[in-house]
């Protein structure tokens, strides 16, 4: 009885959403961006609520919950419509998702502010910062490459993994240039940020990374990009500033180092 009701509900919603979808597909109605924005807000707020009532249990980080729940809801809705998740995502979620996504542009620029607030550290330690990022990245590349080979990843996947120290927009073309798949690279960049967001506090504690605030900031900024920088800011102003500078400098270092590394290990 109940399931019948649910089915009837679904049919009504389905027709309503379906109408919206066809309009979105033809570009007739920009109003459909509302679905993506609304879904993003709802899943994130549920994440915040879960995080709060679980007293900050790490797996309930709002970004992580929002992502998993959002994908799950899209998966269910796609099933209900009889399409696959990727198609449904593109037609129903993307218009709204893209609007929120766009604000990552000014948000990335905004990291110049915490960077400038600790300009004293930048001026004193710029040489150590640049050297650490270059040397640290090269060591990381070797370890990541060997770990990938150990797990038997294909050459293409390995090449997609190597540039992910840089921000997505830099990592993708480099991955393509060294024989990787840019789609995997984009996915890995996102996973990097989500992992740092979920495990960052724990990793900082376990590896005693915060003993050196400059290193903590550079590490979080490289591994977690802008999300890592936000995490670093929670640790302190120096960490936040260093993470911001890491996002910029590591991207340029990746630009220069990764293609060389790829030919060194014979990836291309």
């Amino acid at each position, binding site marked *: 009885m109940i399931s019948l009701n649910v089915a009837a509900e679904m049919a009504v919603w389905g027709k309503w959403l379906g109408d919206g979808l066809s309009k979105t597909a033809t570009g007739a109605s920009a109003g459909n961006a509302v679905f993506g924005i609304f879904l*993003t807000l709802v899943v*994130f707020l549920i994440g915040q609520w879960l995080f709060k009532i679980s007293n900050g249990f790490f797996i309930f980080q709002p*970004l992580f919950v929002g992502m998993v729940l959002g994908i799950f809801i899209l998966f269910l809705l796609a099933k209900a419509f009889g399409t696959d*998740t*990727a198609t449904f*995502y593109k037609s129903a979620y993307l218009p709204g*998702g893209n609007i*929120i*996504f766009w604000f990552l*542009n*000014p*948000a990335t*620029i*905004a990291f*110049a*502010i*915490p*960077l400038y607030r600790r300009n004293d550290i930048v001026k004193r330690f710029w040489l*150590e910062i640049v050297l650490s990022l270059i*040397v*640290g990245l090269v*060591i*990381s590349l070797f*370890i990541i490459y060997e*770990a990938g080979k150990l*797990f038997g*990843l*294909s050459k293409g996947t390995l090449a997609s*993994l190597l540039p992910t120290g840089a*921000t997505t*927009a*830099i990592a993708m*073309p480099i991955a393509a240039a060294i024989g990787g*798949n840019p789609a*995997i690279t*984009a*996915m*890995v960049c*996102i*996973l*990097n*940020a*989500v*992992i740092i967001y979920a495990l960052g506090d724990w990793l900082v504690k376990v590896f005693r990374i915060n003993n*050196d*605030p*400059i*290193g903590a900031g*550079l*590490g979080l900024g*490289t*591994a*977690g990009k802008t*999300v*890592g920088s*936000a995490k670093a800011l929670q640790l*302190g102003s120096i960490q936040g500033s260093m993470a911001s500078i890491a996002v910029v400098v590591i*991207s340029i270092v990746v*630009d*220069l180092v990764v293609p060389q590394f790829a030919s060194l290990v014979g990836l291309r």
Partner: protein
Amino acid sequence: MAANKKVSSAEAPEKEQASPILIQMGIFAAILFVSSLISPLFPASFPVPTPVVGLILLYVLLATHIVKLRNVEKFGDFLISLIAFLFVPSGIQLAASLKVLQAEGVKIIIVVIIATIVMLVVIAYTTAGFIWIRKHVFHGNTDIDQ
């Protein structure tokens, strides 16, 4: 001129006041616009995306005191506080690449987790090493005001 000076000195106590939020947004939009013009000038083999150009641009403007902290601080801090939320669509984007994940399955996730931890730990420790060298080899000052 003199009148202007008088007005500005009268306003001096309010100097620290933040700029109106729309002006702050305007500054961000202007930087973003200029960055979007600069970014394509980089060659394809050395890509520098718009937000990274913008970050450098805003830092330079702040360092040269052309833009003051009070002009951008409020809106900038607000955006940074929203980062996790702004990243949710990127996370949900994985819904479109579930197929890619299926190809190499759990292996790739494990390697990505390892890679993330490696980048964090190796770079943090390398930095600690260079700071140690500065202190013990070059006897430099490594004291930091928290």
